[in-house]
């Protein structure tokens, strides 16, 4: 190993680490607000990457069908819930808007030839298709059991993850996909040559992190989410609806996942089931941050990226083992420092 190889490995680890950090942030966000361990987080990444690939190869975007289907279920659930609560038939506006949006992405996805439109249009449409999945999944699968024990929430999250993988196979097929890089140029940085896509990944991750920080620190919605994460009951007493908090956090998680998918799709082959392993590395970061500290989790995720890159160089057959073994000392240290965590209920 020489300096140049170390530099390239470091840069490679940085790229994956940046993505893991984003996923770790959204996992913590959703967990602290709703107590849901968001196992399907990786699916947002793969779905947006595969949607981009479908558009670029001129195939119709069929993911809209899933969005529309879920939106119809959510609409029906809302109408029934309203009926039970107020004894009259009303159509809640949010879910009607989501259903209309679902119809819009189905229609557009199946008819418009996106391969002739620019990259920005494609990115915009991929976000429009994937991001609504966040609130819809929350509405359909988690909202009815929002107060269930976290173990139940975890089981439902796993079930949703398995169902989404199956749906992904049906919608996107078994083949892996790659998209066109944003630009082909390379940047010469000292002795290392860096593909511009790598800079895109790191830049977008950094920008999203800053944006999230601003959102939580300055906006009313962000403060409401923080309140809900800090003390659920207290937040409810001052008028922050848990449904609103859950829906917003899932929307953010879907947005982060979708953006990650769009930026990594040009540098790797993504399969319909690639998401799990990516989000698992995010989980490792989140656990290093004790499922509560954003900066520590981000740092942990970056470390995971580096550990992965260098351990792959030394012993590629054992790299996953090395990465996941990293968890052991962290967990040990955590449990020594906080001996009585108790149940999280």
């Amino acid at each position, binding site marked *: *190993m020489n300096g140049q*190889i170390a530099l*390239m*490995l470091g840069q*490679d680890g940085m*790229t*994956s680490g940046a*993505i893991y950090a984003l996923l770790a942030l959204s996992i913590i966000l959703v967990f602290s607000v709703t107590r849901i361990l968001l196992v399907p987080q990786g699916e947002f990444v793969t779905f947006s990457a595969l949607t981009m690939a479908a558009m670029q*190869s001129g195939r119709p975007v069929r993911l809209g069908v899933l969005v529309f289907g879920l939106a119809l279920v959510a609409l029906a659930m809302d109408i029934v819930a309203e009926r039970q609560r107020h004894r009259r038939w009303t159509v809640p506006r949010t879910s009607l808007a989501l259903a209309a949006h679902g119809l819009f992405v189905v229609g557009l996805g199946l008819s418009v030839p996106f391969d002739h439109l620019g990259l920005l249009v494609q990115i915009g449409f991929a976000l429009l298709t994937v991001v609504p999945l966040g609130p819809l999944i929350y509405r359909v699968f988690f909202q009815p059991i929002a107060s269930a024990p976290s173990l139940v929430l975890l089981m439902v999250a*796993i079930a949703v*993850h*398995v169902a989404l*993988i*199956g749906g992904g*196979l049906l919608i996107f*097929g*078994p*083949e*892996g*996909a*790659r998209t066109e890089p944003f630009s082909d140029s390379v940047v010469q940085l000292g002795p290392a040559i860096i*593909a511009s896509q790598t800079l895109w990944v790191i830049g977008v991750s950094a920008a999203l992190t800053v944006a999230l920080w601003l959102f939580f620190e300055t906006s009313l919605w962000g403060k409401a989410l923080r309140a809900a994460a800090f003390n659920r009951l207290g937040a409810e007493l001052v008028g922050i609806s848990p449904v609103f908090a859950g829906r917003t956090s899932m929307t953010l998680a879907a947005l982060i996942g979708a953006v990650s998918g769009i930026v*990594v799709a040009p*540098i*790797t*082959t*993504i*399969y319909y*089931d*690639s998401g*799990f*392993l*990516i989000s*698992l590395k995010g989980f490792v970061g989140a656990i290093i941050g004790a499922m509560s500290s954003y900066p520590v989790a981000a740092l942990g995720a970056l470390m995971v990226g580096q550990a992965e*890159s*260098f351990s*792959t*160089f030394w012993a*590629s*057959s054992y*790299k*996953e083992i090395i990465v996941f073994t990293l968890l052991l000392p962290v967990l040990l240290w955590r449990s020594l420092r906080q001996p009585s965590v108790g149940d999280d209920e």
Partner: protein
Amino acid sequence: MPAMRPLALSLALAVALVSPALAGVKIGVVTSASGPIALVGIPQKNTVPLLPKTAGGETIEYISLDDASDPTATVTAFKKLVLEDKVDAIIGPSGSPNALGVIGFAAENGVPMLAPVGSASAVLPMDAKKKWVFKTTQNDGLVADLLVSHMVKTGVKTVGFIGTSDAYGDTWAKVLKDAAKAKGIAVVAEERFTRQDTSLMAQGLKITSKSPDAVLIGAPGSSSVLPETTLVDVGYHGKIYQTHGAALQEFLKLGGRKVEGTILAGSGMLVLDEIPDWNPAKKIAVDYIAAYQKLYGVKPATFGANVLDAGLLLEQAIPDALKQGKPGTPEFRAGLRDALEATKELVGAQGVYNMTPEDHSGFDVRGLELLTVSGGQFHLLK
């Protein structure tokens, strides 16, 4: 990473009866039409309706099951087919690890098994159990010999290897070492990756730092693309070889410009236009592709032809087996096994089969061509 994907276990088996139940020969088909190797399994499952419907005056009924790429589910599917449906033979499963797990069960119950898997360890070394197994793909050793002879011819002295960390990569690491040792080529690097890895930069750098004259990539399906594009990205300038696992249209589509000049060995099905008409396999392959395209609107991957060939092998073995007993009896199944083993000069979509008690793959070099990629297409290597 099977240990990390316990969820796959919970995927239910999709059961589909392909034709109505009639008295006659019952053939089970087990494919991995979902899960990690669905790319291999889907064309195989889709080929079932194109298999022969009658043989020796008996109708053939196919019972098709999906094992979701999970070896445990393969065992369950085999048990169901053998114990409940009482099938006379089984075509499948799609994956090498899946196949290795059910050989014992098939042999115990005396059910011939036609495995469309890549790994030669399904039929080699031949023993009392494996004599029930027939393999409808080219043996890895045969492919490796062809690739290594090309390396020798073009003056390659050192070779690096990167393969998947599963049975496919393991087998290829072994056959490459054997073939290279026999021809005096040194294997200087051996790296592994998993299909879902998002970056292979580290492996690519490690191999490049050993600067081998050529690199062989041992990976099935579209996972064969990322190692090659990574090698190009990190500035590797030697020759890149691929196994028959990369012989797919997907490989060209995903790899684009970066896989130009790749050398691989695969069935002639990929370059039918360039195959001379005297090659007996050509007509069967052309007909198969046309029928498949009519049914599904896309061309089949070569994996589908492995199942078609299994059907053709059974079609010619059934009349002989009928002399030994009625379908559904152990005598018939034993007769079927003997008849399969006695297959001589049977033309399939991928080549000509000549089975012997020692060789249950039965391919010779007629089923294999050296191919290269140029202008975004596979071509015969001249």
